[in-house]
C-alpha cells in the first residue's frame, strides 16, 4: 500500500464527487427559471440514491467476480469482503475501499448526466425509477465490460482511460433514447423561446466540472506518478483548446459567448476522457478542438433540423464528444506515454477498429435497454407531468418550492 497513491485517489474521489453538484448548476442555469430547482434536484437526488445503491450492489455488479464477461456476480454484495487492504485485482497500491469510493463517483455522475435530456417535463418519481433501473441494468454491466476484471470489452483490448464509452457515450445515447420516448417540452415545436435563466450558474458549474475532472482523469491513473501527471495536463489542454475553439465558432457565426466557451470546455473534457493517460500532451489540442467542432455542429443540427427535444444536448456533448474521444484514443495512443497502449500513430490501426467495436456495442446496448425501460415506465407509472404542472413549472409542481423567495 502506498500512502501517496492513496492520498491522490482519495483526493480524486472528492473531486469527482463534486462534479455531480457542479452538473446540477451547469444544467440548472440553462433551463427556465421555473424549473431551476427541479433540474438541480435531479442531480442531487441521484447523488443520494446511487451512492447507496453502489455500496449495496452496484460495486459487485460492476467489479465483482466475472460472469461470462458480462457482469459481476453478487459475491461482494454490501461490500462483503471489501476492506481496507488493497484489492488483489484493482489498484493494488491503495485500499480496496478507496477504489470503491472512486468508482462510486463515476457511477453517480454518469446517471446524472442524462438528466439534461429530460429537464422541464419529467415526473420526479419516474426520473428516480428510471435512474435506479438504468444504473442497475445499463451502467453496471457496461462498466463491467470495459473495466471489470474479465469484462468482454476489456478482453478485446478496448482502451478507455477514464470513461469515454462507459460514461459519456453511454449517457449520451441513453439520453437520446429517453428523450425520444418522453417527447418534447410544451412549446418546443412552436419554437417558443426558452431562455437560460442564469448563465453565471452555468459557468460556475463548468468551472467546478473542470476542477473535478482532474480527479476523474488523473485519478484514473490510480497512482500518483507520471501517468497521472500526463492525464492531468492533457485534460487541461483539451478543455482549454475545446473551450477556445467553441468560442471562435460562435464568433465566426456572430459573437463569442460565455455559454459557448463553457460548453466547449466541457466537451473538451469529455473528449479527452478516454485518452488522457494514453496520448501525448500535444495530441490534446486536436482532440479538444475537433471535439468542439463536432459537438457544435451536431448541436446546431439537432436544434434546427432534427425536431428532437434532447433539451440540454447530452447526446451532442457527451455522446458525440465521447465517441470522438474513444476514436481519438485509438488514433493517438502511443507506448511513449503508456506502455500498455498503442494506436494509429504507433502504426497499430487495429486499435481503431477495437474502439469502434466498443463504441458500437455500448451504443446499441444502452440505446435499446434505455428505450425499453422508458417505454415500460411510460406504460406503467407515466413519465411526464401533467400539462398544467409543466406550464406552472416543476419547481412548484414537483417540489413545492420557489428558487428565490420573498417579495
Amino acid at each position: 500500500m502506498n500512502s501517496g497513491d492513496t492520498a491522490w485517489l482519495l483526493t480524486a474521489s472528492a473531486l469527482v464527487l463534486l462534479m455531480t453538484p457542479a452538473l446540477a448548476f451547469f444544467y440548472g442555469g440553462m433551463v427556465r427559471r421555473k424549473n431551476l430547482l427541479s433540474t438541480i434536484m435531479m442531480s442531487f437526488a441521484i447523488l443520494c440514491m446511487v451512492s447507496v445503491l453502489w455500496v449495496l450492489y452496484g460495486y459487485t455488479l460492476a467489479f465483482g467476480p466475472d460472469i461470462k464477461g458480462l457482469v459481476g456476480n453478487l459475491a461482494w454484495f454490501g461490500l462483503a469482503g471489501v476492506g481496507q487492504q488493497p484489492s488483489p485485482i484493482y489498484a493494488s497500491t491503495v485500499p480496496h475501499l478507496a477504489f470503491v469510493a472512486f468508482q462510486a463517483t463515476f457511477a453517480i455522475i454518469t446517471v446524472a448526466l442524462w438528466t439534461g435530456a429530460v429537464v422541464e417535463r419529467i415526473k420526479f418519481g419516474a426520473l428516480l425509477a428510471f435512474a435506479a433501473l438504468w444504473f442497475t441494468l445499463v451502467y453496471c454491466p457496461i462498466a463491467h465490460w470495459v473495466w471489470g476484471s474479465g469484462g468482454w470489452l476489456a478482453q478485446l483490448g478496448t482502451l478507455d482511460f477514464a470513461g469515454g464509452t462507459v460514461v459519456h457515450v453511454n449517457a449520451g445515447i441513453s439520453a437520446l433514447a429517453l428523450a425520444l420516448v418522453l417527447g418534447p417540452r410544451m412549446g418546443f415545436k412552436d419554437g417558443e423561446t426558452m431562455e437560460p435563466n442564469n448563465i453565471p450558474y452555468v459557468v460556475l458549474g463548468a468551472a467546478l466540472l473542470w476542477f473535478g475532472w482532474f480527479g476523474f482523469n488523473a485519478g484514473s491513473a490510480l497512482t500518483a506518478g507520471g501517468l497521472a501527471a500526463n492525464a492531468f495536463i492533457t485534460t487541461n489542454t483539451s478543455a482549454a483548446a475545446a473551450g477556445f475553439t467553441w468560442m471562435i465558432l460562435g464568433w465566426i457565426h456572430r459573437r463569442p459567448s460565455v455559454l459557448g466557451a463553457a460548453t466547449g470546455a466541457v466537451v473538451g473534457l469529455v473528449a479527452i476522457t478516454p485518452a488522457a493517460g494514453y496520448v501525448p500532451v500535444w495530441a490534446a489540442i486536436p482532440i479538444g478542438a475537433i471535439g468542439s467542432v463536432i459537438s457544435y455542429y451536431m448541436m446546431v443540427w439537432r436544434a434546427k433540423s432534427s425536431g428532437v427535444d434532447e433539451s440540454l444536448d447530452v447526446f451532442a456533448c457527451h455522446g458525440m464528444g465521447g465517441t470522438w474521444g474513444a476514436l481519438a484514443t485509438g488514433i493517438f495512443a502511443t507506448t511513449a506515454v503508456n506502455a500498455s497502449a498503442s494506436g494509429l500513430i504507433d502504426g497499430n490501426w487495429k486499435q481503431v477498429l477495437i474502439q469502434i467495436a466498443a463504441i458500437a456495442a455500448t451504443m446499441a446496448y444502452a440505446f435499446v435497454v434505455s428505450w425499453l425501460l422508458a417505454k415500460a415506465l411510460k406504460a406503467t407509472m407515466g413519465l411526464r407531468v401533467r400539462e398544467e404542472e409543466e406550464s406552472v413549472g416543476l419547481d412548484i409542481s414537483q417540489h413545492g418550492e420557489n428558487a428565490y423567495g420573498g417579495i
Partner: protein
Amino acid sequence: MKKIEAIIRPEKLANVKDALGSLGILGMTVTHVSGRGRQKGIALQWRAGEYRVDFLPKVKIEIVLADEECQAALDTICVSARTGREGDGMIFVVPVENAIRVRTQDNGELCIAAK
C-alpha cells in the same frame, strides 16, 4: 387612449403575447409582480413542514392603445390568459391623456399606432 393593465399567470405570457400579436398589437411592457386575490396563496416546503405564501408570482402586461382597439384586446387577453382555475388574474383599464414616442417625439394616438 387607454392603458390596459392585465395581471396574469406568468406561464400564460407567451400565449397572450402571441394572441395580441395576431391582432396587430405589438407594443407592450411587462413587469414581474406578486399578487394576491381569491387564490389564497400556496403552501411551500420548508426544510421540514411547510409554510404559506400569500403572494404568488404574476406578470403584469401594460398596453396603451387607442380607445377603439381596447375591447378587442380585452377579449383576446381574457381568452388567452384563462385556465378556469383561481388565480387567472385581473384586467384593469385606465385612462391615458397623452403618449409620446421618445425617438420621434410624435405624440397622441399617432405614436402608438401599430406601424
